């Protein structure tokens, strides 16, 4: 029986990108459906009634939601090639820990930084940069978070790379100056076809963010 795989996503979502990369790594054919989050499709509402968010993977009619959970699912189902999580339980625990850290910290702090002003903005901004410094420290001198190979944490973090330009512009900092090792790591990841094909252009991401920002400011 042929697998039917559908991905509900939006082009600019870092979380959706994770799933695209994972599916590409495994060579899985799938149907991509672009969602308009201001006018959510009946399919999205049916498949993710709890959170009503993307990405949603629909595998043979059954939905899987939450990007980190989807990626683990993909790794477990299409397990004959390109492992995403390491095989050793301790390394797996470390990988899950760091993806969880990314999920707890980056997006929420970004929003706080982006939408605040004055002293509040300055505090959040510093906090935001420190998150990436922490992640750079966790990388150490390894080429990837997975050690020698691209893995779960690399996949979990790299989608934020196409947002760096936006982060830098609104956050008034240069990632290259603050976290040079992280930039080197990101460029290494971008050499992978699964990654470069899954991430949109950073300027397009910035235009998108700028439009949203203007809209929020005018309210």
């Amino acid at each position, binding site marked *: 029986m042929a697998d039917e795989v559908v991905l509900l996503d939006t082009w600019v979502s870092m979380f959706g990108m994770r799933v695209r990369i994972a599916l590409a790594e495994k060579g899985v054919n799938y149907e991509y459906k672009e969602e308009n989050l201001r006018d959510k499709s009946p399919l999205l509402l049916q498949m993710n009634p709890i959170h009503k968010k993307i990405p949603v993977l629909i595998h043979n009619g059954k939905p899987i939601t*939450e990007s980190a959970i989807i990626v*683990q699912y993909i790794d477990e189902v299409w397990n004959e090639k390109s492992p995403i999580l390491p095989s050793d339980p301790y390394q797996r625990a470390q990988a899950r*820990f760091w993806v*969880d850290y990314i999920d707890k910290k980056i997006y929420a702090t970004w929003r706080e930084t982006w939408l605040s002003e004055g002293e509040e903005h300055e505090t959040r901004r510093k906090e935001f940069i420190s998150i990436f410094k*922490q992640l750079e420290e966790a990388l150490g001198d390894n080429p990837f978070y997975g050690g020698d190979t691209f893995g779960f944490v690399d996949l979990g973090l790299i989608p934020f790379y196409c947002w760096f330009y936006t982060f830098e512009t609104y956050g008034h900092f240069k990632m290259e100056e603050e976290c040079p090792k992280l930039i080197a790591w990101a460029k290494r990841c971008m050499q992978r076809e699964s990654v470069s094909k899954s991430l949109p252009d950073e300027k397009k991401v910035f235009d998108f963010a700028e439009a949203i920002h203007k809209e929020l400011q005018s309210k």
Partner: protein
Amino acid sequence: MAKSEVKLIGKWSSPYAMRVKIALNIKSLQYELFEETLNPKSHFLLQFNPVYGKVPVLIHHDRPICESLVIVEYIDETWSTGPSILPSDPYDRALARFWAAYIDDKWFPSMKNIVIVEGEEERKPYFEVLEEVVERMEDAFGKCSKGKPFFAGERVGFLDIAFGSFLGWLSLIEHIYERKLLVEAKAPALVKWAERFAADPAVKGLIPEIDKLVEIFKPLQIKWRAAIGKK
């Protein structure tokens, strides 16, 4: 296995530490428990959890693992010959992980806010979140358990642990604010599940007694309110 091979930095009142204890019990593992006071945080804790400085921390062969659900999965994968904690089917695993993440996202933050805010009107929206969680978990129980006693089936598993670890605190909130959340009228299956969970050999004695939680309630409320004030 030598007891000192596995260490746990925990706290009797922490639902997150309880999750790890249940998992260790399921696998019949001996471990050395370090009771953390968190006031101040011990050097030991900060050394092994430099990122968050929180309990629980599992230390196995002198290597730390942090975050309760990450630890539970680690225990399941490392001691794979014991009873399974996560389901074997990938889809069921994804569902269990989804609901556990949902609990962590919704339950504790709402409970904490109920304690922090002042006045019934301020608490109302958070109680509504908890009521919605109960309703959703009642529904999830039907789908996940498939007629069996626990979310995981015949035995206590991942989602039972994730949700059940909050039962002590749930009782405390119900008691302090005189408002029942886990009631037969709204969640008949969950009420029965909670009884089975509390009585399970892996869980027995781990749910903190309500009298002890009442004792720490006021100091905790002061501490949490002060932290918000500082922020």
